[in-house]
Structures are given as structure tokens and as C-alpha cells.
């Protein structure tokens, strides 16, 4: 399975705020285990969707400089309801603080306008070459992967507009 928990970026205010969507499909195989006869998006994948949305804010703002953007701390992530197959979870992350090294976000998830999850996230940004110069080429590969993924998700960026015009 692809570990991509954001299908589409809907809004992006550079360095400040992102709105993105994750659609849930019955074709997602893990649903057979979670749960049998009651398939719902696992809570930690709602968290992962919020983390990935916030990570895009970081990457876009820092021009993809950090090759790895990882969850350092999640606080008070509260779950209020479930996402069922066929539904779309709208995820919103608001940046509270952002430096080269770390960022803090207040994140929320909505289902048809109703808030069903919220939490505080701290992300850590790093490059492998900071720790071992021999990994600089891996950093570049990671950056290339992330830029390509971003172009797929964010239709607002110039590359996407060119494709649409064809």
C-alpha cells in the first residue's frame, strides 16, 4: 500500500495554513482488519494525514530543503467520530511556529463540516548530510521524490497548470 494519506491539497497559504483531503476507499486493504464488519479509518492514519498535511507546509515554505520531515511529538490528539469508506476527511493544519529545524501545528480533521479529530503536532526537519556528508545524494533523491509528489497533490502549482492546458 502506498503510505500517502493526503489525496489532494485544496488550499495552501505559504508557511501558514493548509487544507487537504483524504478520501477513504473500501479498496484500502487494512480495512479488512479495522474492523471486520465495521471498516473505519484508523485513528493513527487520521494523525498521519494531519502530519503529512503539515509536512507539506514545511517543505513548500523551506523550498524542500529538509529531506526528511518527521513527527517529533503529538499532543492531545482527540478522536470524536469515525470516517467510513466513501467519505472524505478534510484535514487542516495551522502553523504556529516554523524554524529550519522544527515546526509546531494545530491540526484538525472535518467530516462534512463537523470536526472529528484535532491535535497539536511538533515536526522535526532534517537532512542526512548534516550527520554524514556521504548521504548528500540520498537527500537529493528524497527531495526529487517529494517535489514530484507535491506536484501531484497541489494543483495550484505551475507544473499542474501546464498539464491542464494541454
Amino acid at each position, binding site marked *: 500500500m502506498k503510505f500517502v494519506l493526503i489525496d489532494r491539497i485544496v488550499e495552501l497559504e505559504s508557511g501558514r495554513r493548509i487544507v487537504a483531503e483524504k478520501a477513504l476507499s473500501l479498496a484500502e486493504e487494512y480495512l479488512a482488519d479495522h474492523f471486520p464488519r465495521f471498516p473505519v479509518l484508523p485513528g493513527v492514519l487520521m494523525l498521519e494525514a494531519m502530519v503529512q498535511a503539515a509536512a507539506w507546509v514545511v517543505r513548500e515554505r523551506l523550498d524542500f530543503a529538509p529531506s526528511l520531515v518527521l513527527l517529533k511529538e503529538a499532543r492531545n490528539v*482527540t478522536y470524536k467520530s469515525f470516517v467510513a469508506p466513501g467519505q472524505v476527511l478534510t484535514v487542516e493544519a495551522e502553523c504556529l511556529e516554523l524554524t529550519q529545524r522544527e515546526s509546531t501545528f494545530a491540526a484538525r480533521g472535518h467530516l462534512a463540516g463537523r470536526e472529528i479529530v484535532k491535535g497539536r503536532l511538533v515536526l522535526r526537519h532534517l537532512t542526512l548530510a548534516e550527520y554524514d556528508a556521504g548521504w548528500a545524494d540520498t537527500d537529493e533523491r528524497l527531495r526529487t521524490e517529494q517535489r514530484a509528489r507535491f506536484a501531484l497533490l497541489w494543483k495550484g502549482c505551475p507544473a499542474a497548470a501546464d498539464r491542464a492546458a494541454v
Partner: protein
Amino acid sequence: MAAPSRQEIFKKVQQALVDALSVEENEVTEEATLTRDLQAESIDILDIVFRLEKAFNIKISQEELTPRDILSNPEYVNNRKLNAAGLAALKQRVKHADFSKFEQDPDIDKILDVFTVGTIVSFIEEKLAASQS
């Protein structure tokens, strides 16, 4: 050992709420309602109760805060709303809470709205005093 002062209790309750709800200290005033002002969900209330039990070394049962025998009693509840008798019974059981807004629309699913920070502090103050005697 002397029972802690109200101010000492308030400080510990304030810390528990800051930790559980990701709110700032200055938002946690005596008058603030847990659900409306501090955005606590029902699971947060359970989390907060656990933290208070630990902080004050006391046991708090769900019944003391949201008495199921009143909230699910057909003599007190019509269409998920408390009638006059139900409200009276609830006020007798759950002291210190602010029922003024709740009374205008006594929806049992909104019962948690009656709890302010001050309510919690008074509740703990009373429990600690009772355990001293």
C-alpha cells in the same frame, strides 16, 4: 497533613487542564466552562478525571459528575431533556455547577456544559475536606 488551600487546588487543576487540552494558563479561569470555553471533548473529561485522581490521590467516579440514575430515569427525562423534577434532583446531586445556561435547554447530551473550572475546584475541595474528617 492540612488540606490544601483553594488556591493550591486551583493551581493543580489549572495545570491538569493546560496539559490535557493544549490551552494557555490564562484561558483557564474559574468561570471558564470546560466544554464551551476550553473546547474539551467528552474523552478529554475522562482524561482530566484520571489526571485529577492522580494529582490529588482521590477517586472520582463518573456517577459523581454525571449521575446515570438521574440522566436515564424516565421520571426525570422526556425526549432526552430533563424536566423540572430531574433538574432539581440533578442540582441536589451535582453541587457547585453552573446550571443557569443549561436550564434554558436541559439536553442530557449537553450535561458536561455545566462544569466550570471553579466547579471542579470546589468539587475537589469538598472531597479533600471530607476525607480529612
